């Protein structure tokens, strides 16, 4: 009984150790688990499939190394799909680290799929995250707002940017983010010009996003790492999204087990009280 009651107050350091162990083990020896596709993820897939070939896509990068584990695989999956369909896209980074990290992903995938910088994709370069100030101007005149790509070259000279003038030449915006930038995209772009938006948030932000998703303000959503995993499955390749989802499964199971243990402890301490004559 003492053991059972000890379950009521497990030392947090033990829990932290168990978590570390679970993640390491699950990443090292991944268990193949099936993922089924939810309608939110299918919405992203369909939105990318629906982009007309004469329009470009914008991949908005707000994440940095802190949330790379979740946002990185999402970015890669979306880029792969765009490349696969032959839709030209531009990276629009709002974070200094994210700028480098997303460019690295694009370079890797583009090399793998035989695509060329400037023709199939480009990088508009880092700018400070003043979305509310920049987006209205971007919508009206893209080349004048962006001016130069990350290498300092005039964006007007890039082959893929030919004929791209306003937001009406943009067929999709993918906002990949760990923070509240979606509001800016919705209120300044989608709400005004009806440009389709898909959303790739971190897992903690998911519950809130069902509201705009339901309102049709975003076409689809990749919920964190499992979302990326599902998307990978739809695109038929195995990336960190699927591997990482396994580790996530493990840690969720750990949390559930700990919660159950805590409750066992609670029940045990309740039962014991009368006989103990006021044990605590």
């Amino acid at each position, binding site marked *: 009984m003492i053991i059972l009651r000890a379950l009521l107050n497990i030392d947090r*350091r033990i829990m932290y150790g168990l978590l570390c162990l679970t993640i390491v083990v699950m990443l090292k020896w991944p268990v193949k688990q099936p993922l089924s596709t939810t309608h939110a993820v299918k919405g992203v897939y369909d939105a990318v499939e629906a982009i007309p070939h004469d329009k470009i896509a914008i991949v908005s990068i707000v994440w940095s190394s802190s949330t790379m584990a979740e946002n990185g695989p999402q970015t890669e999956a979306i880029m792969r799909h765009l490349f696969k369909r032959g839709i030209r896209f531009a990276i629009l980074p709002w974070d200094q680290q994210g700028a480098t990290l997303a460019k690295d992903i694009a370079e890797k995938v583009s090399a793998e799929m035989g695509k060329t910088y400037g023709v199939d994709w480009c990088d508009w370069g880092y700018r400070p995250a003043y979305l*509310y100030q920049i987006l209205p101007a971007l919508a009206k005149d893209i080349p004048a707002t962006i001016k130069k790509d990350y290498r300092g070259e005039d964006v007007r000279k890039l082959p893929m940017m030919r004929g791209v003038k306003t937001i009406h030449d943009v067929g999709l915006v993918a906002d990949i983010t760990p923070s509240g930038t979606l509001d800016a995209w*919705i209120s300044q772009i989608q*709400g005004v010009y009806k440009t389709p938006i898909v959303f790739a948030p971190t897992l903690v932000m998911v519950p809130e996003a069902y509201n705009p998703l339901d*309102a049709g303000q975003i076409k689809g959503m990749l919920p964190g790492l499992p979302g990326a995993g599902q998307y990978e499955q739809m695109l038929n390749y195995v990336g960190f999204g699927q591997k990482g989802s396994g580790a996530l499964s493990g840690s969720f199971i750990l949390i559930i087990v700990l919660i159950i243990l805590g409750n066992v402890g609670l029940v045990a301490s309740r039962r014991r009280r009368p006989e103990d004559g006021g044990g605590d």
Partner: protein
Amino acid sequence: MDAFLQRYSLQIIVWLGALSTLAIFSILYKENAFYRLFEHIFIGLATGQGIFMTVSQVLHPLWWKRMTAEGQWYWVFAFLAGMMFYFVYSRKYAWISRIIFGAFMGFTAGLTFKAFATQYVPQIAASFKPLGGPPSSARPDVTAMTVVYAVSFLVFLLPLVWAAVLGSKAARLKREAGIR
């Protein structure tokens, strides 16, 4: 120095990264001097980088360059407006800083109206859904699912919730009666 940095910078980055990670993780055990040191370094780096970014991304290109190189002399008024904030440190003239604070609050207030109309009104409209109507192709049929769950809830979960409620009530009654 140059050659050294070029040659070893990657190794330095890796080792410093590992050290920083360990320092922060050490707080999971308990607060300690190692963590404290890196906390101060972190704040120092963030402050320094913040100053660098503000100067290189905003103040230099959007203000100084425009005012001097592009000849738009009237940007001097932006500087004057910015300086008004600093009157907050003067007892006597603190009210002058309130003018610029007021302007900023006004802008925020104005934008709130705009956000309400573009962001929330469409969500009000999205709540207009037929009850028990046919499901749309893109979304699951929430109504049908609700019925299924309501039934299963009654069958499986209600006894459990009921027991828990009873349990907590009994515990409270016992507590109130002084039985421990």
